[in-house]
């Protein structure tokens, strides 16, 4: 069976896979199933994979492996896709309160104009349905989603912002995203959520002069059990005993790591408009499946 997959070299240390299925959902399933297969294969030298909407980037150290080996492993994994898609964890639903427009979403007026809609209509479309998380991407594990049902793609900003505040809710093309951390960004901003998106646990900015990060409680009351199994290490290792050797590395070791996020690809986000005066009620609360306090679906 032809899964409609193209494999191409992407420099001397990466290979990119594109799924050409006309059905976007099918293409996404294929690249994420391939990502799981590559991870499970624990190939020597492979140190990173980036499954996205319809593509998969495989990063490796070309002194430890070669393109042919990676191509072969990918083709073998593609053959095995015929056995049916791997079981994916059942999707969870996240409800995300957002203050739209004004200083929270400075690009709402221009996006409305570009789409030929009123600002209110843009917000209604953005909150109208659950949006599926397709991958964790830039910056810093941002949940990258399918966009709302806008009449046409949203153009990116002509000149990217140097600094986008954390929690900013943005759209571009046919995509939607929340920016977890302050970072540069070229996507138009519709609003901002007061929730914390990333669980940095005990990781806090290391101030110059301090030797160890401060500690803070990890997770949040009411977060579903299972996000952070007790048997996984907290993401901030204590100062270690011996540097972890880069070479030779046990195959696949580097890929077994716990995410900093409660969400994973396949989960859905539902945005809910709140008034600016409701901001403080949620400020700093950790994003968690199911619970967004008392946000009622309108």
């Amino acid at each position: 069976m032809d899964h409609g997959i193209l494999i191409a070299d992407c420099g001397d240390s990466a290979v990119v896979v594109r799924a050409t299925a006309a059905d976007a959902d099918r293409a996404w399933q294929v690249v994420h199933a391939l990502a799981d297969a590559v991870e499970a294969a624990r190939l020597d030298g492979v140190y990173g994979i980036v499954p996205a909407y319809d593509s998969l980037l495989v990063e490796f150290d070309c002194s430890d492996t070669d393109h042919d080996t990676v191509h072969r492993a990918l083709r073998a994994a593609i053959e095995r896709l015929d056995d049916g898609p791997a079981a994916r964890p059942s999707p969870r639903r996240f409800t995300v309160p957002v203050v739209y427009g004004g200083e929270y979403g400075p690009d709402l007026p221009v996006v409305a104009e570009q789409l030929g809609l009123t600002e209110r209509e843009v917000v209604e479309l953005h909150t109208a349905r659950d949006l599926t998380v397709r991958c964790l991407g830039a910056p810093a594990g941002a949940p990258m989603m399918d966009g709302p049902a806008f009449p046409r793609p949203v153009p990116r900003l002509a000149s990217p912002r140097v600094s986008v505040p954390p929690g900013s809710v943005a759209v571009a093309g046919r995509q939607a995203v929340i920016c977890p951390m302050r970072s540069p960004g070229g996507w138009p901003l519709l609003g901002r959520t007061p929730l914390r998106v990333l669980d940095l646990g005990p990781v806090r900015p290391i101030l110059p002069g301090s030797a160890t990060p401060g500690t803070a409680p990890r997770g949040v009351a009411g977060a579903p059990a299972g996000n952070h199994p007790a048997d996984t290490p907290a993401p901030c290792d204590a100062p270690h005993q011996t540097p972890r050797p880069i070479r030779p590395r046990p195959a696949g070791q580097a890929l077994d790591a716990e995410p900093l996020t409660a969400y994973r690809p396949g989960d859905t986000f539902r945005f809910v408009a709140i008034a600016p005066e409701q901001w403080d009620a949620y400020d700093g609360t950790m994003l968690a499946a199911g619970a967004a306090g008392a946000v009622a679906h309108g």
Partner: protein
Amino acid sequence: MADTFTVHRAGLTAVQDLGRLGRSRYGLPVNGALDQYSARVANVLTGNDEGAPLLEITALDFACTPSTDVLVALTGAPADLTVGGIPRPRWEPVLVPAGETIRVTGIRLGVRAYLAVHGSVESPFLLGSCAPDTILGFGRSLRDGDELALRAQLPQIDHPVFGIPLFRLHAAVPRFAASWTVDVTDGPDLAEFGDSADRLLRSEFTVTPQSNHIGLRMRGGKPGDVPRRVATGEVLSRGVPVGAVEVPAGDELLVLHRGRGVTAGYPVLAVVTSTGLSALGQARPGQFVRFRRRTVAEAVAAYRLQRSGIDALRARVRTVFDALRIPDPALPLSSLPRPRK
């Protein structure tokens, strides 16, 4: 009380390693030393694992004093290294007696120098790496007056002839000049640029001040130097490799480096090679860059040659260090052969 470096002049110095591997799937960039070659060699010259934490000194002068005898090595961009005011060689191990000040001054032609110390330094770790991540707000930058804990003790080193050892280990030193030739391979979206793709190889580009560890911005010398995307249509965000050459706006190239976000929506015209990325990690604003096309096979061969050179250097270091009874820092001191009486 652990032995320390007392930092007198921090400049722009961070504790760094080769990067945070295995986190791309969760949206975290690899980060790590921008000039990977120099960082690896600095560690190898001090007997460390190549991925051990070391100091990445960016552009500005640096000075510190160890509380115990240490063995250090300075690599990367040309600079002046002195110990107690006496010039000492770069790209070789250097013995520093307790209380003598190490100074790294006048970094030039490149932008980053790497100072490794036998046994490495203490550092906070996140997900297996001490590499700073500026977006997460993680990492250790040094400040004037800091005490940086050292992680290994150096036994007394006796040299049979000179008392103080001088090393000639012949690490391969990269060429530093006012302009760079950077190797690239064809990118996966080359076809989207039509006939204009060749401009990347024909033009000379200037590194702009808006360049950092996330990416380098480069300007063409005249209009028409920058390739143009001829294809139109929506590009879905997708994984982009470190080294991706993108054309986001009309008149500038963007070359992604180790701090790059893992996904982007721009077509990838070319990809800088692994050896080219170490060179590009040294490019200063105002310097010129020319791109040179290589096949993937040539790029892989060049990188493997570079890495085998490091492997050979490691073997020479181990031979010399064994003769001087300088321990492998990964081993506890008690396992050392006892000095002959």
